[in-house]
């Protein structure tokens, strides 16, 4: 019973992650692409916890949520959307 | 079932319902200002109720849950405030029936978006 629920949650999360991955490529604004990448990292963190890897989940949350987002925001501030 | 268990179940369901409502509000509200209401206030209340429900069912975890609740209470209004200020940077989002705009009168202008 709990297995069915976990499968449903994993299917929802996985579908959302793949859809977000495709959206990163096709969304117009680069800033939106950065935000959606942050969402991919955060749901990957939930997925890691579901796979019983709390250490990896903590690392992915701290790095994907803050450091990577911050670095890409800096780069977008320097380059802009054109090109 | 003890009283604590019943209280925990009620709190969990109400918290989950409010969190679901916030997601619904994010999707269905017409413009950004309305979505900010759903996205910041409802999630704060829903998280507090949900975590309180978990605390009723597992009393040993209360210190850690209390820390999470404390951080949510401290941080979520700040991020909502910063988001609202960021939305204010977009003049085309200004609603038609706005009577007063105190932030614009203070002469505040952040950087324009590049």
């Amino acid at each position, binding site marked *: 019973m709990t297995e069915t629920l976990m499968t449903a949650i994993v299917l929802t999360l996985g579908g959302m992650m793949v859809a977000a991955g495709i959206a990163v490529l096709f969304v117009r604004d680069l800033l939106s692409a950065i935000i959606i990448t942050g969402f991919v990292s955060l749901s990957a963190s939930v997925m890691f916890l579901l796979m019983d*890897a*709390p*250490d990896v*989940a*903590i*690392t992915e949350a*701290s*790095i994907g949520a*803050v*450091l990577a987002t*911050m*670095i890409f925001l*800096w780069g977008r*501030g*320097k380059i802009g959307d054109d090109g | 079932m003890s009283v604590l268990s019943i209280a925990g179940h009620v709190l969990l369901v109400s918290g989950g319902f409010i969190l679901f409502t916030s997601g619904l509000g994010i999707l269905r509200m017409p413009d950004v200002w309305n979505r900010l209401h759903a996205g910041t206030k409802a999630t704060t209340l829903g998280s507090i109720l949900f975590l309180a429900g978990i605390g009723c069912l597992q009393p040993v975890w209360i210190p850690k849950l209390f820390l999470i609740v404390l*951080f949510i209470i*401290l*941080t979520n209004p*700040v991020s909502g*405030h*910063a988001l609202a*200020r960021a939305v204010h940077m977009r003049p085309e989002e200004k609603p038609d029936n706005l009577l007063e705009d105190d932030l614009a009168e203070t002469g505040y*202008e*952040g*950087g324009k978006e*590049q």
Partner: protein
Amino acid sequence: MIRTLAGLVIVLILGAVAAAVIPEMQMREELQGVGYSYASRGMDETGSSNLVTAVIVAYRGLDTLGEVVVLFCASTAVVLMLTLYPIGVKASEPSRIVAFTAKVLPAPIMLFGVYFIAHSHLSPGGGFPGGTVIASTFLLVMLGSSSVPDRNGRLPAIESLAGLSFGLLGFWGIMTAGQFLNNAFLGTGTPGSIISGGLIPLISIAIGAKVASEFSGVFKAFRNSGGEA
């Protein structure tokens, strides 16, 4: 358009290969090989309750040292390039609420990071996540102020000291037990108490300090490169 379609064709071919290969990885029922031996002997040999930390710091400590060196090279390259070619735009003032939050919240968040580092052998966490949490407090301080270049600081000293102490702790193992990063000579203690695991807490502190100072250095370089112009 033709580019997108050609890429799609390549990716679909690779997807077919993956769909053929991945089901060959049978679902295992039992631990095998290296994983089995780490799980069965790890707690007795290293005294660490967290087997992942035991693998990172004790069994694969030399690999972690190399990995820290790679991290050092990447962050040094970033800082060096940003110092050589500064590129900048001015930033605006934060609002009062954000500025106040940036004054109050860094201390508790840094306490989180210190908790993760100090309990690396007891609970999930360890040097890498703790270091990034500490580095993100510097990010919070940076978000709560307008960007003013700040050229002096002790970050390189902390970084060098942390790397040096990692190496020295490893050589201490060679001198006393004849093995690089041997951690049993300090005594493994009772697993589950805060003083246990031999060298693991000390090495976690070194890794945490190094990761924190490197990422803080990257953020500081980002901030300083936006000063002029």
